[in-house]
């Protein structure tokens, strides 16, 4: 027991353990995000999605991974073999490296760097090389165009997303991921309430950075076949995919930490206890949520057409009950353990919601054209982000120098920023256009 409290354990063993867990779990997680994506897509498109491999397609990710692993690995004759080999590895490696600084709860974090946020940004800006070098090394025009598009797009939207982050940072006053969440705890409010425009900018920027629709131009299927991945197949291709989905989780985690309160539960300053215990009322929310999910699954069980599906539905319900039990048991565990488990639950729930928004956008919007993408980035988002930073700074001055309550101060500046946004949007639509483009009807 003494060993568990030793500094060696805390500085060396635990981070390595956490890192190992992340590296081991992430491919599986990415596979299941793909499954969820396909199921959500199917639901929005009035169909069922994967149903064959395992009940309700639950084993589909494993089948896919297996198939990709045993597929023939093709390297084009005139490809640059070294870079062709290195690019996907770089893509996935950089995405995984960024996880080092992400706090999946107050306990589960590999390393709390004092430049944690900047570290994540830096590492994810390296991920671009996986795309650019892979596109170049394939020696194909489609890949090259995808790579060029990607380089230009990522550099542009990184700027916008970075400025969106800054607006929340001025409220947080620190670059350490833990300190940012702590700042939100101290103020008793998530920063999305202070800088809604900043959150919007980061949302758009992060979609563009992860090459998701409607900004999926580097891999635009109908134009560039698969963009930078055109010449890739089998496991290398799977690595790119893994990198993309890992990156999605990273940007979602950053957004969660910065704007959505990290691992904090809703109403974090509401501390009423159950009478006679030290358990807070709201801490049973996760338990209730899981129980609700279990009840829903049980209600669906009799309606399943095949017996095996009934059994699986019941099994899923059982799993939910078990998780509810874990959440409940955590309430009686030592505070550290309890905070770790519940923090991880809330964090992952918020990350999931953010990723769901990604999926939702993907199935709703058509794709931007390249010049429109650039115009949106440089003529709308970046000016708006700059104004937003000024707005956030003004709100801080209002609240700290003039004694205004932070929330109304932030509301005033946000409203002003929104006004600028409307002006920018209408200006962008009316701006003189050089090519065949008359963007947008009414606003």
């Amino acid at each position, binding site marked *: 027991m003494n060993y568990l409290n030793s500094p060696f354990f805390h500085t060396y063993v635990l981070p390595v353990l956490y890192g190992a867990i992340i590296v081991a779990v992430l491919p599986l997680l990415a596979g299941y995000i793909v499954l969820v994506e396909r199921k959500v897509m199917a639901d929005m498109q009035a169909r069922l999605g994967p149903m064959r491999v395992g009940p309700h397609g639950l084993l589909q990710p494993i089948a896919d991974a297996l198939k990709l692993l045993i597929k023939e690995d093709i390297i084009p004759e005139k490809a640059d073999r070294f870079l062709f080999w290195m690019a996907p590895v770089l893509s996935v490696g950089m995405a995984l490296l960024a996880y080092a600084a992400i706090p999946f709860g107050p306990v589960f974090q590999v390393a709390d760097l*004092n*430049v944690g946020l900047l570290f994540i940004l830096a*590492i994810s800006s390296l991920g671009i090389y996986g795309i650019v070098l892979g596109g170049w090394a394939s020696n194909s025009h489609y890949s090259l165009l995808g790579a060029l598009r990607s380089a230009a797009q990522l550099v542009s939207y990184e700027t916008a997303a970075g400025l969106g982050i800054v607006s929340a940072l001025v409220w947080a006053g620190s670059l350490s991921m833990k300190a940012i969440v702590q700042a939100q705890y101290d103020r008793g409010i998530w920063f999305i309430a202070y800088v809604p425009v900043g959150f919007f900018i980061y949302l758009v920027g992060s979609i563009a950075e992860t090459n998701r629709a409607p900004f999926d131009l580097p891999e635009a299927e109908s134009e560039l076949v698969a963009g930078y991945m055109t010449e890739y197949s089998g496991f290398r291709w799977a690595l790119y995919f893994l990198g993309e989905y890992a990156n999605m989780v990273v940007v979602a985690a950053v957004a969660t930490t910065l704007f959505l309160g990290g691992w904090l539960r809703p109403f974090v300053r509401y501390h009423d206890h159950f009478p006679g215990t030290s358990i807070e009322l709201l801490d049973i929310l996760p338990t209730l949520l899981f129980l609700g999910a279990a009840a829903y699954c049980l209600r669906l069980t009799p309606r399943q057409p095949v017996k095996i599906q009934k059994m699986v539905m019941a099994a899923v319900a059982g799993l939910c009950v078990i998780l509810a039990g874990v959440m409940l048991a955590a309430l009686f565990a030592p505070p550290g353990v309890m905070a770790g488990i519940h923090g991880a639950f809330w964090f992952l729930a918020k990350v999931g919601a953010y990723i769901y928004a990604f999926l939702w956008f993907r199935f709703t919007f058509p794709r931007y054209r390249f010049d429109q993408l650039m115009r949106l980035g440089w003529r709308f988002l970046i000016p708006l982000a700059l104004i937003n930073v000024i707005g956030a700074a003004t709100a801080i001055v209002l609240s700290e120098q003039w004694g205004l309550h932070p929330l109304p101060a932030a509301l005033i500046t946000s409203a002003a920023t929104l006004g600028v946004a409307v002006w920018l949007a209408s200006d962008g639509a009316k701006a003189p256009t050089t090519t065949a483009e008359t963007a947008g009807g009414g606003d």
Partner: protein
Amino acid sequence: MLNAALFYFFAALAVVSAIAMVTRRNIVHAAVFLITALLATAGIFLQLQAQFLFVVQIILYVGGIMVLFIFVIMLVNLDVSLHLVQFNRQRFVAGVLAVILGVQVLGAFWVGRGSLKLGAARAMEPKNTEAVGQALFQQYMLPFEIASILLLVAMIGAVVMAKRRV
């Protein structure tokens, strides 16, 4: 111990990739090796407890400037020049001169080694980012503004020069 090992690892990486960069025939490979060298340098910054500079090095140098380089390399599609002679005619003289320059500076170090009384590293502030920020926006405010004007000028210049049809 760990500290020294880190330094020697990054230093070796930086030197090897710098040599590879100068000698590679394929220009994209050269760029990749330069990126490796820059990353190794970033590692050395980290080892010197300059966390903020470590991040700046990666974001700006590796994530920004080098992307620009690779972008341009791709634009000026250089399959043809791959088979040309990569070094110019003065290469031997130039190489020798450069080595002489290096040896000269080394000599200067050697001569002045006694006067460099820095000894062990002094304690740095733990909050590196804050310290850099304070210094940048108070003591070095004017240079900071000048630098931003320099960047603006460079940006305009680059746009004007790279523009397709003037």
